[in-house]
């Protein structure tokens, strides 16, 4: 079964967001998402310094099966990207909430975080999407 850590917020498009110091938000994809994608073989990351809007495409994850866009869950500036994924994209499968993070955003608007789903609501959302 997929894990849904309670300390994270989630977008319906399956990204997670973790609030770190000083309004920095780490972003990755959920355990449910990595499981649905299957073996991840390539990750296209944004540029550090790039501005993103909430809901905008910020990265691409390619599994053997398909390519999927990763959307920024909040608006702000990209302050870090996980270059580990360039050489070890399978980390997304192995540790989706830890070493498999994609990028960090300096968030502009705290209210956008509140609009994301909590773990339980997101888990129900995943359940409702299952065939």
């Amino acid at each position, binding site marked *: 079964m997929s894990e849904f850590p309670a300390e994270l917020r989630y977008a319906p498009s399956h990204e997670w967001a973790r609030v770190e110091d000083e309004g920095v938000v780490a972003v990755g994809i959920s355990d449910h998402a990595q499981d649905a994608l*299957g073996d991840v073989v*390539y990750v296209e990351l944004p540029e550090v310094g790039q501005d993103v809007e909430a809901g905008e495409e910020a990265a*691409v994850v*390619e599994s*053997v*099966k398909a*390519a999927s866009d990763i959307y920024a869950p909040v608006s702000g500036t990209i302050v870090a990207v996980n270059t580990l994924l360039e050489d070890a994209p399978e980390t997304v499968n192995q540790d989706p909430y830890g070493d498999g993070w994609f990028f960090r955003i300096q968030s502009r608007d705290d209210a956008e975080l509140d609009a994301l789903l909590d773990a339980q609501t997101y888990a129900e959302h995943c359940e409702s999407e299952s065939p």
Partner: protein
Amino acid sequence: MGNRTPLFDAHRAAGAKIVDFGGWDMPLHYGSQLEEHHAVRRDAGVFDVSHMTVIDVSGPAAVSFLRHCLANDVARLDEKGRALYAVLLNASAGIVDDLIVYRRNGDFRLVVNAGTREAVLANINSHAAAFDVSVVHRGELAMLAVQGPGAVERVVGICGLTGIDALAPFSMLERDDWMIARTGYTGEDGVELILPDDAIAGVWSDLLAAGVAPAGLAARDTLRLEAGLNLYGQDMDAKTHPLEANLGWTIAWRPETRDFVGREALTAIREAGSRWKLTGVVLEGRGIMRHGYRVITEAGEGTVTSGIFSPTLGYSVALARVPRAAAGACEVEIRGKHWSARLVRPPFVRHGVRVHK
């Protein structure tokens, strides 16, 4: 619920993710399609291919009937136990299906795709009326593909059948109601077993107990594409002809007196020159080519028909339909960006190692 093979419960027990495949509930993978792919390249994997269609053709006119239906010539099968890859064409030379035909004792067995069953049966039955033949769909038979460098050894160990390891590629032997053929769809050594429905579960569990990895449709797709083998419905269909599907080698033009279905149309296409060809593409960057992506060459634009991340090579390879004169460097458009790529002759991988230039 779709059609199910006799192994459906065994797939579930092995942890399969089940998907609909042409009306069949089939295993996509059993956890990791990459591991299944590598198992086949390095040792041995087993695929349940019981959804495929087995058709037996018998009767006094079986040879002349198949020489009429198929673009390849069954007269090339000079003794029983030999097999031939062939395409079945419609009158305008469109590909109805690709298949393997096996010569048995006086009759023939065709193994065709699952998704084309109705079209193939309708096609060959429409020609059968003029011949003294019997065409029988053998729905009660199941089929396993055991593939990889360690496959034959495992099958011999389980079945105790002598002669399997001495089988030449594209040949088969029969014992009672089993057929064991040295054929496959992976570019590796291996066998395909056609056996009664009620015998398959025991063979499956014996193979797994012997360390053969269960492998699903996802690994089957990456293996066949690395091997440069077409997938019907994706790389070719009833709107494409063999000369634009990299299948010119399967057309037996001689003897010129053999009037096979589609010959007249295909001859006209050959004389005018095919506009397209199907060839391989290798991507030099780190993106992945997918079905439908644009290919830009100096001779004009084409389209990716099948594209994958190649687990063996570590980069993306594809089949693409491009203008016939296209060669060498090209570009592939991936999400709006153009990436450098090269047109190459398939296959990409054979017996576990890179073979493309």
